């Protein structure tokens, strides 16, 4: 279980996250929704160890933690599917999958990569999310975009023992890609992991999510459960709510030809 208490992260003097408090329970999918710049990505980078929080606490099973690096977060069982998928294009599939947690053998001056173990891990991790027939020695830029995403998800599912954080790509995804993400989060929930899904699609969020965390200007604007909202509510909330109403009014004032749209 992951818990955030009064968590604040500042970019200079501007808070990117402002006193965010939320409990991410195991076996639950928490969808994080919000506009661009509302703090979604900052939340992801704090959970995955890329950024340290300035104030407040991040509790892992009740113990305050502060990850020095994403490697430490992954060692603690929190794995992330990054927005850019975090793959090095010229490297082989197995090098990408094991990057940051490479299996090694031998003692220090001669400690070397255990290539066979890494290949095997890769094949198993990909099989676990249902992808077969990928040559682990293939360079990643020879994979189709869908398979690159599979690789990123397989990596996170493989290393995430307690929590899975998914930051969806900003570009629209196809049905097949959404299916893949859906399978990953639901599978992780079934295994009792705390799942955080950052998404831009409220209907999709409503389909898979148990809880919905709405962020606005770095603050929690809403912490809702499936019982509180239906997918139309979520869509409305996502679309900007009050701000959109204000924008509509203002534009209609300035341009009466818009009429009553």
């Amino acid at each position: 279980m992951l818990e955030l208490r009064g968590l604040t992260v500042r970019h200079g003097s501007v808070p990117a996250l402002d006193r965010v408090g939320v409990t991410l329970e195991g076996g639950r999918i928490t969808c994080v929704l919000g506009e661009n710049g509302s703090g979604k990505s900052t939340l992801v980078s704090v959970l995955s160890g890329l950024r340290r929080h300035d104030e407040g606490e991040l509790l892992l099973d009740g113990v305050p933690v502060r990850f020095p690096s994403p490697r430490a977060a992954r060692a603690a069982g929190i794995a992330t599917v990054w927005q850019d998928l975090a793959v090095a294009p010229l490297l082989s599939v197995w090098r990408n999958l094991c990057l940051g947690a490479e299996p090694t053998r031998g003692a220090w001056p001669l400690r070397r990569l255990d290539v066979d173990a890494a290949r095997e891990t890769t094949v198993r991790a990909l099989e676990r999310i249902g992808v077969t027939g990928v040559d682990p020695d293939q360079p990643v830029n020879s994979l189709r975009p869908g398979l690159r995403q599979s690789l990123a998800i397989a990596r996170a599912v493989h290393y995430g023992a307690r929590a899975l954080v998914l930051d969806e790509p900003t570009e629209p995804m196809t049905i097949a890609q959404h299916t893949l993400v859906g399978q990953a989060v639901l599978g992780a929930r079934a295994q009792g992991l705390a799942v955080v899904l950052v998404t831009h699609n409220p209907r999709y969020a409503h389909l898979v999510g148990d809880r919905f965390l709405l962020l606005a200007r770095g603050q929690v604007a809403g912490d809702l459960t499936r019982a509180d909202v239906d997918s139309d509510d979520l869509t409305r909330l996502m679309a900007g709510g009050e701000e959109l109403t204000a924008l509509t009014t203002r534009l209609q004032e300035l341009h009466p030809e818009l009429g009553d749209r």
Partner: protein
Amino acid sequence: MVRRRPSALAPASLTRGRSWTLESFQPEEALLRSFAPVSVDRLPSRGTPPRRRLLDGVLARPGLAAVLGLLVVVLLFGLRVPDLFSPAGLAAVLDSAALLGIGGVAVGLLLVGGHFDLSIGTVTLSSAVLTAVLAGPGEWGIWPALLTSLAAALAVGLVNGWLVVRTGLPSFLVTLATALVLQGTTLSALPLVAGAPRISGLDAAPGWSSASAVFGATAEVGGGVFPVSVLWWLAATAGAGWLLWRTRFGNEVLAMGGSRRAARELGVPVRRTTLVLYVLTATAGWLIGTLALVPAASVGATPTLVTAIDYVVVAVIGGCLLTGGFGSMAGAAAGALLYAVAREGVELAGWDQRWSQAALGVLLLVALLVGGAVRGRLRAAPRS
């Protein structure tokens, strides 16, 4: 659907309120139970699926350009100046290739990591001069002098790395600055300290015989005098190749050069890796300086900024991408050999030396274009 019906009908589950909605709404249950295989074939694909072709396999070996170029120059000069491949000629080629190769391997490793070092040429000069000043006018033993200059070289490497990591400025500019500072200081300080622009007679320094055995030994084979620097070169190439492809550090270097953001997101210690890379190039610079200093037992103040470019040329011809993320240490060795054959060949043929530079420029251009093709078409990774 069938699965949901019992709970929907059971009054007991209705009384559970909120959790009823949470737990019974599982339309994806079939998927959930065991990550059912998704049909990957239906995932979107751009263009045609990858086909393994001969060209792809060739392009995936970036060092191949250097090997082909080497064959060409060997054929060319083999016909024109057969003397080049007499034992004496070979010894001269290897002597020249060894120093180029050590620098090329070090710079190649740095290029793979996505960085650049122009200061290695001046580190070579400065560390050799420092050793000579300490062991000559300073009257130190040669070993303490060598260790001191090694420490100084490491310090330069750390400063380079720290500046690059700290400022985030292009490493080309940062190392150009340190190179100029070092070269200017060395060239102007040497005559002041030693009283002459050249220090010689270092073989009188205490401990010279052992240092000479390590850095200046030679072996005569069939009339050619082969220097020990060839062994250092081979060791450096093998060591760097192993480091790059078979250690965790190497994987981090490759990832850092390929995508720094991805490396950071996956917890690669980007700063530490960068620092280590700069320390390694500085060490290589010191080694080259020492391997040039000891056999001659003298050192002169000549500008060496350009030799840093030579190392980059060697590494790029050898298939290290200037953009980072891929490279070949054996290729860099082949590149050094190619460069050395061309240089010695032009000299033996009695041509104007400057022609070799022009030819090298053409070769570099070809290597860069091939590198671009590799980046775009890397379909098979023979050395994964």
